[in-house]
């Protein structure tokens, strides 16, 4: 439905968005995930029509809309700061898009009522925006955009100003809303939990380029770059060398030990240097050496960090490297993980299928 063909944006010498291609399908909940300043808003503004791409074309439903002004694009935006009209009541804010299109008064009234109902703000019609909480403002912004039934709805970090609980609740509501309305969403965020929980597909953006674009599961389980692995969740990385490649086996030597890994990029050849990544929650600590279906490193517990839902142990390996292990709390005895003390020697163990092998 939406297709970006090699669009890019430069401000003078600074390249903010590198030429990138993207196709979004009808009814998708598409997320763009990236750290602050990576160009997310810039990309969104080009789709909405506020900024012109330096190069490339934007197609909507097969029509080139690159030069179409924003008020003639069937696209609506929920702004990062909501941008509610401060001098209008909630009702007039929501009705704005219909009013400027000269919709009959009666129809406006019905649709505004329906839109406010949809976002759970019935009865707030006469409030001024300054009399609303951040979450309520966000819903008004959403209703104001949805009421126009656009082909495409762009959302720029709409949940970032909310507390975690409200934010999580809104995630659920947004996902429901999207499913019910069938409108295609492009949702920009720097919060990976938002992206993973709502999106049908996620694009991870870094310094103006897409590092990876896939389903949340793929993204988490099979990050294709070191950046993605580290940015989505967290990951321990080690330098390694490929020792063995066969259709169902990949051998990698890490820290002088041979590890056999089944997963990973298959275009590798023996002798290639690679990065080997392990997520903290894929690891466990043990006083016993790994079994043959497992791999392991031996080290010393250096630090314990209580996270609430889990505990993170930092284990210093013999070689001097450090590895983080996330231990679920059912393994806690009082405030210690399995009764382990600081400086105690342990094995860090994972099953052979875990971990990713990436190009260095």
């Amino acid at each position, binding site marked *: 439905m939406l297709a970006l063909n090699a669009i890019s944006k430069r401000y003078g010498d600074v390249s903010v968005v590198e030429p990138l291609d993207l196709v979004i399908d009808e009814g998708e909940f598409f997320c763009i995930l990236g750290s602050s300043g990576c160009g997310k808003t810039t990309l969104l503004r080009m789709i909405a029509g506020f900024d012109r791409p330096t190069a490339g074309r934007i197609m909507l439903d097969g029509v080139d809309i690159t030069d179409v002004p924003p*008020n003639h694009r069937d696209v609506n935006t929920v702004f990062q700061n909501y941008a509610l*009209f401060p001098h209008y009541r909630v009702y007039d804010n929501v009705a704005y898009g219909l009013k400027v299109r000269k919709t009959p008064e009666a129809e406006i009234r019905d649709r505004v009522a329906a839109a406010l109902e949809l976002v759970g703000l019935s009865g707030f019609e006469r409030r001024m925006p300054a009399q609303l909480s951040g979450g309520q403002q966000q819903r008004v912004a959403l209703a104001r*955009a949805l009421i126009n039934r656009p082909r495409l709805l762009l959302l720029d970090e709409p949940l970032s100003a909310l507390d975690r609980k409200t934010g999580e609740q809104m995630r659920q509501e947004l996902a429901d809303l999207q499913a019910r309305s069938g409108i295609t969403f492009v949702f920009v965020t720097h919060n990976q939990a938002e992206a993973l929980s709502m999106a049908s597909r996620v694009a991870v953006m870094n310094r103006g380029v897409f590092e990876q674009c896939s389903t949340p599961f793929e993204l988490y389980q099979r990050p294709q770059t070191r950046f993605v692995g580290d940015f989505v969740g967290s990951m321990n990385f080690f330098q390694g060398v490929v020792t063995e490649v066969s259709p169902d086996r990949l051998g990698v030597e890490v820290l002088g030990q041979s590890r056999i890994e089944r997963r990973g990029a298959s275009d590798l050849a023996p002798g290639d240097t690679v990065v080997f990544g392990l997520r903290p929650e894929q690891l466990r600590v043990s006083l016993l050496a790994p079994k043959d279906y497992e791999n392991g490193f031996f080290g010393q517990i250096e630090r314990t960090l209580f996270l609430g839902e889990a505990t993170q142990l930092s284990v210093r390996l013999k070689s001097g490297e450090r590895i983080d292990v996330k231990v679920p709390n059912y393994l806690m005895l009082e405030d210690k993980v399995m009764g382990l003390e600081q400086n105690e020697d342990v094995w860090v163990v994972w099953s052979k299928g875990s971990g990713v092998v990436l190009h260095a």
Partner: protein
Amino acid sequence: MSAQLGRRNDLGLGQGLALKLLTAFCMLLLLAPLVVLVVYAFNDSRQVTVWQGFSLKWFAVTLQDREIWFAFRNSLIIGGLNAVLATILGTMAALAIARHRFAGRQGFLNLLHYPVLLPEIIIGIALLVLFVLLDVPRGFGTVVAGHVTFSFPLVALLVLARVGAMSRTLEEASLDLGASRWQTYRFVILPALAPAIVSGVLFCFTLSLDDFVITLFTASPDVTTLPLKVYSMVKFGLTPVINVISVLLILFTLTVLLAIHWLQKEGPHQRWGIRLAGVMVAALAVLMATSIVAERRQETLVIANWADYIDPELLREFESSTGVRVIMTHFSSDEEMLAKVSFGRPGIDLAMATPVSMEILRKSGLIVPFDGERIPNLRYIDEDFRHLGSDPTGTYSVPYAYGLNGILYNTRMVEGPITSWWAMWDERYAGRLIMLNDMMEAFWLAHHLLGYRLQDQRLDHLDEAYALLKKQRPLLRKYESDLVNDMLLSHEAVMAQAWNGQAHKLSSEHPEYRFVVPEEGASLFIDSLVLLASAPNPDAAHRFIDFLLAPERSSQNMEAILYPMPNATARALLPPEIRDDTTIFPAGVDGKRLNIMSDPGDFRRQIQGRWERLLAE
């Protein structure tokens, strides 16, 4: 509106006692002069600083004054037009600067500060020169143009500050929701700017209403505004009429402000109110504009005159009998009159001139002789006044009225009767004497008392005269021309050098004050009407003078302004209490002892230097 722009808080900032006291003090400082002004509008006395009892009579006097109404109407029209035009231009300029990139944008922005930085008088002169160069006749248009020039940049700066604070995403949101650029301006940008625009309108309106300097330079005689009118009235002493005008202006402004405040609140009443107010203002504007256009069609006669120096009844009579509309334009000094008639196309027919200014006008060819044939009533002018030194042929001027300079004193506090100018050197009244704040009068008197003639222009005589005045200086309360009556009435002073017309205003209400022309003689002023070479309507000018000189009208005029006119036939017609009033017509005055001031030429510099030393003491 402010409630919509940010959330309130309960920090309670600004509730400390010290701050409250400071606020109260500032309010007091601000309001005290206003309170005094308002209170004295209800004063029974004609003095502005001496309380005599409650009265509404000055309101009646003010509201009946046709010229004040004209001036007020003109001020309203100019203020209204300026408010509309300057606000539109200013808002457009602000939006252009804030939202568009164009060549010279920064320069334009900097230029907007010029009315704040440049002295107003320079802008005024620049406008005047421009209009003269372009040969644009001065009138409503030029005044409005002048006002718009200095007020629209202020609106632009006001609006610009607001645009700067306004998030750009609001516009983007509007476009994003399908609004066109025009709809975005109308529904988002303008409402967000509304507070700044409303203040802009008010600001321009009041600036216009208050403006004196720029109006002075850009107005034609028939476009007298309220400040110009008030200023010209001050010349003849402050009267409570000025207080009344101020009170009415304050009321007017308050009403407008309250109305706007009410209109800014949201609600169905207010919506209707705004519409109604808009319709009314528009209707009023159209009415006023058409009334001006209608007036323009009429034949007019424009006279530059001192304020309150002609009986308005006579003007009305002349208008109804001839169909010519008479427009008075006022000045408050000779210099101002000269400036008024000598620039560009002043549009003035007749002007009131002193002998000195008449000489200047004649030498520079700005006035032309009257056609005596067309003014048969000239025959009533007293022979003595027909051939004054400044107009030997007697054709360039028609003497109008004159006045004498003498001593005005409080008979209860001064041992009388006073007969000599030397009473002004009497040490018994040290610190309670007043001399006119007039260099020529002071030095003429000193010369005269020493037996010299100022016209001889001798430095040794001048030095002696200076010594005499210097001796008097420590005895004087001050040199003062305008507030003489008030200072006498408040007993701040007991004796003063004064003009008889002014003295009459005091002695007619307070018989304990007496005016005398001392035996040594006195100075005489004469005001004469002159015909400008550029007069648009010389025919009406001749007719008007003939009309005025008819004895019964001259008599009526004298009765109204209470200055003697050189018209013996007319004087005979006066009611006895005026004819025999020794203040208006001082007794024992014969021509020989009276001085008519003439221009001292370069000798003025010598006199000036000494005068300044006297003032500095």
